[in-house]
């Protein structure tokens, strides 16, 4: 595996660019939906806005409050950033196989995502702020509720492709058909669960600005905040690219062609879907969100898996 691939394309630098681009796209789309302009004067149409935010935060003073648990507080943002960056290397971006891939990398992605949330909780807890503690508890609660339907729904594509590897799933879609056509229900469930995983409206409960300020974010400033914001962007990319790879065929284009451009276009569409949903709803209450996850999403995800199993028998 060439060094250049990891650092430049489709590795770190490309992902960084993608993350900033996605944040800009998301902000711009939401602003448009809210009848505003959004970032405008930072670069052409404000495209450099997330970059400027990032640089500014890096250059800001980094305050460590006296009361916090120093080790976890400093380590938290770095760990979370690493953990949200790692799964991105397993996503097939440029070709039908990813930079790194092995049988079972889907499970690995799920595992890392869960781990990330536990680290989030720990760093929230370590900042000993009442708001971040409540935020941290809500993060965990939300994970417990949404991880399960997400995992179950994600086995759908795996069963169809008879493989637990993302790259294999993409290759299956290249040879057969897009899984969105076969499993629209799964796509919907995954989208909702990913919204919750991303903590976006209507599931931005752990960082509800009007209830608990910024939830577990509240005590972080300067470089740590910069990293955390970058993490959020990576998570956005991760969520969108999971949707793309699992259901939309990743970099597969029509007539058996493969290009990063196809991947990119699909990614943009997915992000627009996510921002659209973000602008359309009010926030749920934590108990309502949990109830919804257990009562509707989990059974639906199960039904969807059963359907995936039964489908080939009914329609040969």
């Amino acid at each position, binding site marked *: 595996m060439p060094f250049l691939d990891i650092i430049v394309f489709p590795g770190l630098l490309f992902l960084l660019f993608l993350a900033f681009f996605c944040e800009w796209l998301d902000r711009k789309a939401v602003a448009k939906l809210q009848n505003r302009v959004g970032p405008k004067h930072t670069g052409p149409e404000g495209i450099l806005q997330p970059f400027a935010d990032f640089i500014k935060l890096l250059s800001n003073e980094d305050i460590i*409050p006296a009361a916090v648990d120093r080790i976890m507080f400093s380590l938290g943002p770095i760990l979370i950033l690493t953990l949200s960056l790692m799964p991105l290397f397993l996503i097939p971006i440029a070709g039908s196989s990813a930079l790194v891939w092995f049988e079972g990398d889907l499970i690995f992605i799920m595992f890392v995502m869960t781990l990330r949330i536990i680290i989030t909780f720990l760093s929230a807890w370590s900042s000993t702020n009442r708001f971040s503690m409540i935020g941290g508890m809500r993060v965990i609660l939300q994970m417990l509720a949404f991880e399960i339907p997400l995992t179950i729904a994600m086995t759908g594509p795996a069963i169809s492709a008879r493989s637990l590897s993302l790259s294999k799933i993409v290759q299956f879609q290249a040879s057969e058909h897009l899984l969105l056509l076969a499993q629209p229900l799964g796509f919907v469930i995954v989208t909702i669960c990913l919204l919750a995983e991303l903590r976006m409206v209507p599931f931005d409960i752990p960082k509800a600005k009007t*209830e608990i300020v910024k939830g577990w974010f509240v005590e972080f400033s300067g470089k740590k905040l910069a990293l955390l914001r970058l993490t959020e962007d990576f998570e956005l990319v991760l969520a969108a690219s999971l949707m793309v790879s699992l259901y939309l065929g990743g970099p597969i284009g029509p007539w058996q062609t493969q290009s990063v451009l196809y991947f990119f276009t699909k990614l943009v569409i997915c992000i627009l879907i996510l921002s659209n949903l973000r602008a359309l709803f009010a926030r749920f209450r934590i108990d309502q969100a949990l109830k919804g996850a257990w009562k509707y999403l989990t059974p639906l995800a199960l039904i969807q898996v059963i359907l995936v199993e039964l489908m080939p028998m009914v329609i040969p």
Partner: protein
Amino acid sequence: MSTFRIPFGPQHPALKEPINFTFKVDGERVVSVKLRLGYVHRGIEKLAEDRTYTQNIHLVERVCGLCSQAHVICFSQAVEEILGVEIPARARYLRTIIAEMERIQNHYMWLGFTAHEMGFETLFMYTWRDREIALNMVETITGKRVNYGINTIGGLRRDLTAIAVNPVKRGLDQLEDRMKYYKKLCMTEPTILKRTVGVGILRPKDALRFGAVGPTLRASGIKRDIRFDDPYAAYEEASFNIITYDGCDVASRLLARCEEVFESIEIIRQMLDNLPKGKVRVRVPSQVPQGEAVSRVEAPRGENLHYLRADGTDKLARLKMRAPTLANLLPLCKMFENMNIADIPMIIAGIDPCIACAERMTFIDTENRSTNSWTGDELRKYSIGWYEER
């Protein structure tokens, strides 16, 4: 039962004004609430005693930027009553028009804030965009967007020019259209319903016992409106309905306010159509004879009461102002009982608090300082203890 305290304010994104609630919560459920005001206490009642009546108009207008018209009308009515002055009919009509415009822009603003509290940013942006129409109308008539500075004792300082009538009427049509849409949205959008229905219950009995006023009271099904019960300005000549809802929750308050906007628009239309001709101001002496008066006005948030005592000089002896938010704070504490943390902002928004109004004189504090400024260590000990006991 062991509990966890969270401070809410004084600086908090859900509150544009500083106030401090300290909630005792058990998990996510509110057990009790203590509140502390005094962050916006500017001693206006004392200041008023050092100023002349004309200067006081300026001061009273700044009790609150959002109910400025209501406060000024209330104050000048009290002075006019002691003076025995009858203001011209045109001035009465114009006062009504401006007061109703204030209500419209206030309710729009409130709808936006409520949406913001439930994390519905898009609705917030939309309502605030449409609120600019109302502000434009106010600006055409008075020359300012907030704190209109148009009232004085004995009438108005400026007249409505004929050229302003048509833009205002057009604006009213737009506002009515938009509010119809928002009302439909509030009644059908599932996430809004989830957050408002059954939240912050205030039974009619409690509402009366604790003295709620304005839309908060009317949403508990009680038909009380100063404009109707104790008409002032030109409300006797207007025909309108009192909106009541009997859901007793935030959803009812939401809808009651939406409907009130329609009534306000209707009142303004009637006023504009029947606007009498003539002067807008009578000259009044700068010295007010001895006497006292109680004046009541229905501000956007509810009943506004001023008590004025004059001692024959050009300065007043005592001015007491009771703004609606203060009356609604006790019912608010009642509403919090057994609610979820996530509902707190919604419930607070439900009474449309205007702390600047409530606080020009009052402070409530039932806690000692120590709970307010916990160190991290204390908190950690507390939280560890909390988990051990569970």
